């Protein structure tokens, strides 16, 4: 499938700021599931660094603005050819040992409710394979957290979401990571895009899911929010221990003031033949 992306992120500051530095994780890396046909990042007024590939295989780029600014706008445009690999991340060049992702952070720290959820799910599956356990945990997380837009914010931890009993894709991913860790499976947070189809899927185009490492298969994506594994409707931007670590934009404003964030993402599928 050919997916086109137009993603604009605009920060407007209440008072001019003394400078801005951002680390952008906004370029899809090549794998068997995705191939970039064209891609551009524009940040008017900013000096962009040369893109670099980090140990996790993500493509990072620095944007710096030294002048006093009242706003900054990041525009990402591109076209990606995607292939359905049943959620399996193959052909992605990375150097981080999977076991490093057994480590939790404050956002993926389990609470009693998460421990109970894992116990209840796994005790029913004494002979299950790692893949089966991962699927069961993902289904359990979907069930435990009905998708409720606006119920949580960017700082919500897995434990908070579990206590609230609802969440958005970020919460599903972080709770699933906590669950996978308890089951002894390396897991990480993935940010990207989803081409929300017309089958009633309500999710936003900016999306997040979890990847769980399964011996023999490698990293496998689990989108608990949509009760599926990522397919050719998904574009993967990058990964990290949790939502903050994997954020597409990590920025810092000098002499920071209140900021107003405006994000629009448009994803559309093109017919394959139109590209020929």
């Amino acid at each position: 499938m050919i997916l086109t992306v137009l993603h604009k992120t605009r920060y407007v500051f209440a008072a001019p700021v003394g400078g801005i530095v951002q680390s952008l994780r906004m370029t899809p890396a090549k794998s068997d599931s995705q191939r970039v046909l064209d891609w551009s990042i524009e940040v008017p007024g900013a000096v962009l660094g040369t893109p670099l590939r980090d140990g996790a295989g993500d493509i990072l780029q620095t944007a710096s603005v030294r002048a006093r600014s009242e706003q900054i706008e990041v525009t990402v445009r591109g076209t990606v050819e995607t292939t359905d690999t049943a959620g399996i991340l193959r052909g992605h060049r990375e150097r981080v040992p999977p076991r490093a992702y057994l480590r939790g952070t404050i956002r993926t720290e389990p609470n009693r409710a998460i421990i109970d959820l894992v116990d209840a799910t796994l005790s029913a599956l004494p002979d299950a394979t790692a893949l089966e356990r991962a699927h069961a945990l993902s289904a359990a997380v979907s069930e435990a957290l009905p998708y409720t837009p606006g119920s949580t914010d960017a700082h919500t931890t897995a434990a908070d979401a579990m206590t609230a009993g609802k969440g958005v894709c970020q919460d599903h991913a972080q709770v699933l990571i906590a669950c996978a860790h308890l089951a002894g499976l390396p897991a990480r947070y993935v940010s990207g895009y989803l081409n929300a189809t017309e089958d009633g899927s309500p999710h936003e185009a900016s999306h997040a899911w979890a990847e769980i490492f399964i011996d023999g298969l490698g990293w496998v994506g689990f989108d608990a929010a949509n009760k599926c594994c990522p397919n050719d409707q998904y574009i993967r931007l990058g990964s990290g221990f949790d939502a903050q670590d994997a954020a597409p934009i990590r920025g810092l404003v000098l002499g920071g003031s209140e900021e107003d964030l405006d994000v629009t993402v448009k994803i559309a599928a093109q017919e394959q033949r139109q590209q020929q």
Partner: protein
Amino acid sequence: MVAQYFNEMYDSDKLRPPYRTLEGWYQKMPAEFRAIKQAEAEDLFRRYGITFAVYGEGGDPDRLIPFDMFPRVFTAEEWRRLERGIKQRARALNAFLSDVYDRGEIIRAGRIPADLVYRNEAYEIAVAGFRPPLGVFSHIVGIDLVRTGPDQFYVLEDNCRTPSGVSYMLENREVMMRMFPHLFQENRVAPVDGYARLLKRTLASVAPEKCERDPKVVLLTPGHYNSAYYEHSFLADLMGIELVEGQDLFVEGDFCWMRTTEGPQKVDVIYRRIDDAFLDPLCFRPDSTLGVPGLMNVYRSGGVTICSAPGAGVADDKAIYTFVPEMIRFYLGEAPILENVPTWQCAKADDLKYVQEHIAELVVKEVHGSGGYGMLVGPKADKATIEAFAAKLAANPSNYIAQPTLALSTCPTFVEEGIAPRHVDLRPYCLVGRDIELVQGGLTRVALTEGSLVVNSSQGGGVKDTWVIAEE
């Protein structure tokens, strides 16, 4: 049981050769003269501005670290063996770091458990697959040594991140030479003042490949609230480089720049004295105000070198320590010259059981602790302290390791009544860049309280000048 301690000056009442001239020196020193000299030393340290704030104790942040005038002395022969052992260890630790951020051969070979390395908080996935210039991760390796006999030295711990204290090594010598110049005429003491030059050379030698000029080296400090700030400014001064804080640097494009009155200047090497977590809010802790936003991207694309390399801490973790002799055999194919202290990992059930049964005889430490905090010295603790500690240990065993209480050697130390033996350790500073270098000396820390085995300056320890006597 009476513990036998090796006295470095008097070996069963016989004067050991390196201390030969010092016996007459202290015996002939009148008490009033000694008091005057002690006051003079204190005055000199105050004037140099050398103070050490003690974490968590409150009180005077400008408190002087006590200086004991009685030098601690090694023969050239003793030092040669130490030097070979220290350099060997520094090589192995760097080989380990290069390996675990690359293919992890030592883990594949089953010589070190994967989880100990990869699940370690200090293992930075941000630098997996990245090779710093010359493959060096730890440019200043501080190795804490204790002595238990004429030829028995043990490594207590390794410090691969930003070991502090070297300014005391330099200042102690400076003060001693000013106060007792004749001692340095009577004894051929190897100089230590080349350290700053060697440090600068080491830092310059790891400049990025992209750097095609005389490298610009800066020292990045967290600022004057840090307990080692004095040392940061002292070293920057000696090396003739800028002392900067995070806000003095910025990232633009593929480089890191320093703000100056004449406009931005490109920086090639950062000798950082701040922890990984605070280096770059866009990569590590987002709330850090001490670091430089975007620095890790520049670092990873080869625009600047950070010393020590982010992620170096995984080599000096107390749980990894046990495996350093294995690293030496694995990477260097050599037998370890310096021994490790036998260590029980409380994460292991058998080890924990042993530690719980013998807690009153052991030293129990937090895996990630430093500075002598969160530590139990069994034989020196009362029953209530031991019980309280045992409860903490039982609640979180994997947070602790234990070691036998070592019979630390003693060195004569000035006390009220004259001199008395006090326990000492040694921290030499090994420099790793294009070459591996070590000045002949280090920081001797002394436990000033009679019988105490805790030498940390944060726990009331003092320091001494450390001599290596050149051969006749």
